[in-house]
């Protein structure tokens, strides 16, 4: 029975297909179908997971080869799904958080006339994401990879009547395509080098290829990961993606899809183990994004964008960990899971706040919501404690481990990661303070209220998970569990005991919290964003000019080139082709003039011709 891995994908895929093709009559219960499909997938994932638990360490992998996708010449791609410890964790995260978000969306999207379609897209997303993590072949992974991209496109642009949402959706897709360029090239390189794109075979044999190949593969895959996980330099789409409905931001742009890049790096551990350069590149990308994301998170007044900045930053942590090699992979995944819990929790909390505030997202219009929305406040607070790494909460364990690993790798990397933790504490405290504490700054017509139970229950569950996520580390369970996939973990011995590092991290976090509180909690917050601010703040508000740079360097030249070429095609190339024809026509017109119609002209022509002919003959003969 454990061969039926495909059922995991089939449930949500069937749900999506059903909802998209069924007519209006399913509007009333469509959301239930979708939720049940997602829940079934979760239950089946749990069953398979338990089955996996019962096996020996070396035996924990179920391959389900469905059919040959395509095969031609030397190229053979099997539609195969692999359920192993790594994908098992992802399956549970995706379907678990996914189901909760389905439930939440029932309430959140209640008044939207296109709710059925929304759920269809959510189901499509779940199916694609499961394909991504279960894939046994890079090409199948790519199928899921693009599938989640499509779902993300559809969901960001769900409120299509808003031009900003449509633009954001397109931007997300196109930026992701740039990353896909790297993915596609990596796939071709695999085929050219190894004659296969099977994940297992590629990672097994990459060691015997030249170092250049491994590096190229690593960098190309990293480009793909950067696109999907919104890492610098392809980070710009994530902030705009917040145009989508909030459950989407929670599910896709916080908990699951954006972490696919980290999954890709960890899944390709063989490649990264074989190339020091590629690993270093991963670390650098992670580190830069960690700081950039945190920086942006500090400057945003839009609650969702602040959280999005934070997501970038946290994924930066995961990338950083993944770049540290075998020691870091498990912690990257660990942080990914805990982040999935607490960030989904906070996004849904933010959605709950917006629900109560007439969809206002400006935190400067919030304040003192802890009384009006107690459940949201409590759950959000738990998420907050988890993300800043309050001792005992899940984020504490996962982030601590990453900083510890980073310090073990390189002092400066470690210090930067530490700085990131402090900044995280600062901006999250700012967010908490501006939203739930301080004075009321509500707009007149707004009457905050707690959200309905269908929305708060998922919040409570996720809050509980945020608190308890750290249990996964109990007895190094997660590292042992992932060992068959990512390889053996060697423990770095640091000069100082881990407990000291934990204390230092906690101290830095405390400083961040304190600064945040004294700037935003203890003082009154301006009702409108101050305009006279330092260039640093301005840069943060403008996303560190990421869009501006893209615009100048890529977008404008491309569009200009496109228009120019289109013009050239009509006025240049085509005009030339048509011109050749027209010149011939003109030539013919000119020749026509010699036909005067006067007999004597023709006669003269004949005589001259005869004369020339005779002379020519004579010239030849004599």
């Amino acid at each position: 029975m454990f061969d039926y891995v495909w059922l995991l994908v089939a449930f949500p895929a069937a749900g999506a297909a059903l909802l998209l093709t069924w007519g209006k009559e399913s509007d009333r219960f469509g959301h239930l179908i979708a939720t049940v499909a997602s829940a079934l997938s979760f239950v089946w994932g749990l069953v398979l997971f338990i089955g996996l638990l019962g096996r020996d360490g070396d035996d924990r992998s179920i391959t389900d080869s469905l059919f040959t996708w395509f095969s031609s010449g030397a190229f053979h791609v099997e539609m195969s799904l692999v359920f192993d410890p790594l994908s098992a964790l992802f399956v549970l995260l995706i379907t678990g958080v996914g189901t909760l978000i389905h439930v939440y969306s029932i309430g959140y999207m209640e008044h939207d006339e296109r709710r059925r379609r929304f759920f269809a897209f959510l189901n499509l997303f779940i199916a694609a994401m499961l394909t991504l993590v279960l894939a046994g072949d890079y090409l199948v992974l790519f199928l899921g990879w693009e599938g989640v991209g499509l779902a993300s496109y559809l969901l960001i642009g769900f409120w299509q009547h808003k031009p900003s949402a449509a633009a954001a959706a397109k931007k997300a897709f196109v930026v992701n395509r740039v990353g896909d360029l790297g993915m596609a090239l990596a796939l071709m390189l695999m085929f050219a080098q190894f004659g296969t794109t099977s994940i297992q075979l590629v990672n097994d044999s990459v060691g015997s290829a030249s170092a250049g190949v491994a590096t190229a593969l690593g960098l190309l895959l990293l480009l793909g990961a950067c696109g999907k996980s919104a890492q610098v330099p392809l980070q710009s789409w994530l902030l705009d993606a917040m145009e989508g409905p909030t459950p989407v931001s929670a599910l896709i742009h916080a908990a699951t899809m954006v972490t696919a890049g980290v999954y890709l790096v960890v899944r390709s551990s063989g490649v990264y183990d074989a190339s020091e350069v590629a690993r270093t590149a991963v670390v650098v990308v992670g580190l830069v994004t960690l700081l950039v994301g945190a920086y942006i998170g500090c400057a945003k007044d839009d609650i969702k964008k602040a959280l999005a900045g934070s997501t970038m930053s946290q994924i930066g942590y995961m990338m950083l960990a993944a770049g540290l090699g075998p020691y870091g992979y498990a912690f990257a995944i660990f942080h990914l899971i805990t982040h999935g819990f607490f960030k989904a929790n906070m996004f849904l909390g933010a959605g709950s706040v917006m629900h109560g505030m007439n969809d206002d997202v400006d935190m400067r219009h919030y304040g003192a919501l802890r009384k009006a929305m107690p459940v949201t406040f409590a759950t959000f607070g738990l998420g907050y404690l988890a993300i800043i790494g309050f001792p005992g909460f899940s984020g504490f364990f996962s982030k601590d481990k990453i900083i510890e690993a980073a310090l073990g790798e390189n002092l400066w990397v470690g210090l930067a990661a530490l700085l990131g933790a402090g900044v995280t504490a600062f901006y999250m405290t700012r967010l908490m303070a501006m939203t739930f504490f301080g004075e009321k700054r509500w707009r007149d017509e707004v009457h905050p209220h707690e959200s309905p139970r269908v929305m708060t229950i998922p919040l409570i569950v996720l809050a509980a998970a945020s608190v308890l996520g750290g249990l996964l580390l109990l007895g190094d369970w997660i590292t042992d569990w992932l060992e068959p996939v990512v390889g053996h973990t060697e423990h770095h011995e640091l000069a100082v005991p881990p407990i000291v590092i934990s204390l230092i991290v906690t101290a830095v976090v405390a400083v961040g919290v304190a600064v945040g509180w004294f700037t935003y909690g203890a003082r009154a917050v301006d009702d409108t964003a101050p305009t006279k601010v330092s260039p640093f703040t301005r840069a943060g508000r403008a996303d560190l000019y990421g869009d501006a740079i893209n615009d100048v360097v890529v977008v404008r030249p491309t569009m200009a080139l496109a228009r120019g070429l289109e013009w050239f095609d009509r006025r240049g190339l085509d005009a030339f082709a048509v011109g050749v024809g027209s010149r011939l026509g003109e030539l013919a017109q000119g020749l026509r003039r010699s036909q005067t119609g006067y007999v004597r002209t023709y006669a003269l022509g004949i005589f001259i011709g005869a004369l020339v002919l005779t002379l020519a003959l004579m010239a030849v003969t004599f």
Partner: protein
Amino acid sequence: MNEYLALSMILFTIGAVGVLVRRNAIIVFMCVELMLNATNLALVSFSRQHGNLDGQLAAFFVMVVAAAEVVVGLAIIVSIHRARRSVSVDDAHLLNL
């Protein structure tokens, strides 16, 4: 011998100039005939010079063709004259632009 050929050349040149410079279709026509007959004269002279009948044979062919041509040509000229009340070749230049 050369006298015959010289006469033939002179007749041919008169005919050719006539075709080129005269407007009256009948005259042009006569000039064409003149050219043909100049050629006939040359052919017959050569026949005599070479002592065989090839040239005379060719001359007869030319006469036959010329007769046929006269029939067709005069018919055209007559019909043009009927249509336009003119036999000037310049009046019939429908082939021009």
